[in-house]
């Protein structure tokens, strides 16, 4: 026999379902963000006294050449990483056929994404390694000048980004392959009747239909670019002489590594990175909100 009060009032039920997730998420994600913002106003070595210093950490950042190097590299990462989106589309178009064995090909093209960035970093460290690496040897053979990409301040960031693009292109490819799968074939046929071919077909008929895939691809790529850490840590530790630092690694160096004892300073770097990401997070949410309203 069920009585009305055996069932929690409807307004409480969703909260019971939500409680564990909200608890974990608040403790480990939301509250730490707030704490980090607070720490960024402190002078604190992580062990001793905390001293409130206001905006001093942020002012120091503005005078720190390493900060500008990191920021510049973040911008380079962001821009070049986005190449993964058209490149992923190109690979997807190339593979969107139904010849024998194509499924296996698709899987094999995709699988760099499955490997951890640590392993990708190791693979490319070997690929670039002076003397024994594949790339310097190829360059030596072609042009007679082996280049150790990771030792050159002007090349190192591009070398690491290239390593990062490998799995990222695979990711974008799979998004587009899925998108291409669900394309409306009637529209394609109509386009063919209108004599649309090749590129114009792609641009006017196909791409508009792939917009959701493009959106997701851009979002994950931007976030991936700003999150870049593993590859830098594995391949260069920010070197040579700090020229491949990005904000995420710079923060790690300042607060979490051997010489890193500046918690306040590191937190300030993290807050700057967070602020940059917030721009993209907001864009994403605004778009999702629009979808929710339409739904």
């Amino acid at each position, binding site marked *: 026999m069920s009585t009305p009060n055996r069932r929690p009032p409807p307004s409480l039920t969703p909260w019971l379902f939500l409680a564990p997730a909200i608890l974990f998420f608040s403790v480990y994600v939301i509250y730490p963000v707030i704490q980090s913002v607070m720490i960024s106003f402190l002078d604190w*070595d*992580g*062990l*001793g006294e905390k001293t409130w210093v206001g905006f001093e950490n942020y002012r120091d950042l503005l005078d720190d*050449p390493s900060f500008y190097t990191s920021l510049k590299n973040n911008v380079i990462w962001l821009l070049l990483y986005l190449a993964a989106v058209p490149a992923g589309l190109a690979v997807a178009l190339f593979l969107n056929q139904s010849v024998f064995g194509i499924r296996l090909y698709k899987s094999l093209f995709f699988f760099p994404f499955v490997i951890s960035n640590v392993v990708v970093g190791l693979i490319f460290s070997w690929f*670039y*390694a*002076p*003397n024994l690496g594949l790339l310097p040897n190829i360059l030596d053979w072609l042009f007679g000048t082996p280049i*150790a*990409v*990771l*030792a050159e*301040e002007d090349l190192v960031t591009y070398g690491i980004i290239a390593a990062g693009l490998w799995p990222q292109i695979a990711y974008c490819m799979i998004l587009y392959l899925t998108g291409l799968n669900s394309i409306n074939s009637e529209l394609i046929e109509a386009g063919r009747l209108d004599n649309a071919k090749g590129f114009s077909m792609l641009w006017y008929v196909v791409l508009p239909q792939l917009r959701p895939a493009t959106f997701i691809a851009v979002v994950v790529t931007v976030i991936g670019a700003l999150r870049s850490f593993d590859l830098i840590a594995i391949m*260069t*530790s920010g*070197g*040579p*002489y*700090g020229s491949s630092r990005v904000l995420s690694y710079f923060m790690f160096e300042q607060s*979490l*590594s*051997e*010489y*890193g*004892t500046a918690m306040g300073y590191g937190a300030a770097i993290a807050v700057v990175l967070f602020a940059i990401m917030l721009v993209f997070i907001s864009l994403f949410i605004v778009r999702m909100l629009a979808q929710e309203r339409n739904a």
Partner: protein
Amino acid sequence: MRKHLSLTGLTVAASLLSTPVFAEELIINLPRSTEQSIEATENLIAAFKEAHPGIEVTWNNFDDETYKASFRNFLAANPPDVVAWFAGNRMRPFVEAGLFEPIDDLWAKAGFNEQFSAAESSMTIDGNIYGVPYQQAPWAVFFNRDVYERAGASEPANFDEFVENCEKFAAIEVDCLTTGTVDLWPGAGIFDLINLRTHGFDFHMQLAAGEIEWTDPRVRETFENWGRIAPYITADNAAIDWDGAAALLAQGKAANYVIGAFAVKTLLNGGMTEDSLGMMSFPTINADVPRAEEAPMDSYHIPVGAPNPDNARLFLEFVGTPDQQTAYNATTIRMPVNNQATPVDDKYLNIGFEMLSTAEGLSQFFDRDADADMAKAAMEGFQEFMARPERMDDILERLEATRQRIYK
């Protein structure tokens, strides 16, 4: 690490599932990555267990760079009983943060003040002693005699001759001097020796201690001397680690290598022989400057908050004994620090011993003599200078700004 280096997946699983309970424990965190140092440490632990049956020793092994990077974390968060670290200013931040246990009483009781008389000052911060050193390795120029022969060069009597030789090596497309600075520190060894040769021990220590401006003309002079050989240093050194540079020397792609004597084994394993591998003190730059050498010391320490401090003390006392210092360093082919220990009879060790015992002063290493933040910035500057010597002024100005921030 539950210390079975030869284990299969199955025994791993088994040993993890059945964690035995021991009444007495000792947890030590040490970075050991060469076969000799692993063997020496295993022997040391075995000997300790024999001397103190009933104490179960757990050794967490690390590679050196990971160890240095996570040192502060585990010291603060999850201290073991014994850690390995470095002498001088390199331990100062931890002492000042109250993370190292002073062990003056242990030294007095064990008679270490006499046995480690030369090392006491490097183990002392603000009047207290904080560690027991266990090995020392001099830095020197290691060179490939076969390459010297091929280039028609002879052992340089001074720095000018060293620079002249570089031309000869360049002619046969060999790097005059090699290093691998992916982990930054090897470059500091070159700087230290050039600075010691240019201005001597006292100046070097003052610079490291932040008492001299980096824009001082004397510092410039050191860098100018360095600049004379910079074009002949392995170009990609920023992408090579010290083993990689050792391979270049062993393969005859480089003629000289400024590195600690710990590299000897690696060089010999790489195919060099006692005939082809030469070792010399860094050549004289200014004949009026008395010769000082660089001889970093490694040491054991007890973290504050060690779960088994009594056993930790037993261990430190044990590793300091002349017998254990002799045994450990006989395996690793390094120099014991205890003056009653007997160094193993080894060609390079003997050369090193001669170098150190006749030196005017012994520096530790830039990252041990200088403040950690300063060392990090300076070592990046050293690396940049070798790649772009023309940026000397920029680099020195940046280092001076760092010095002012750190030593304000």
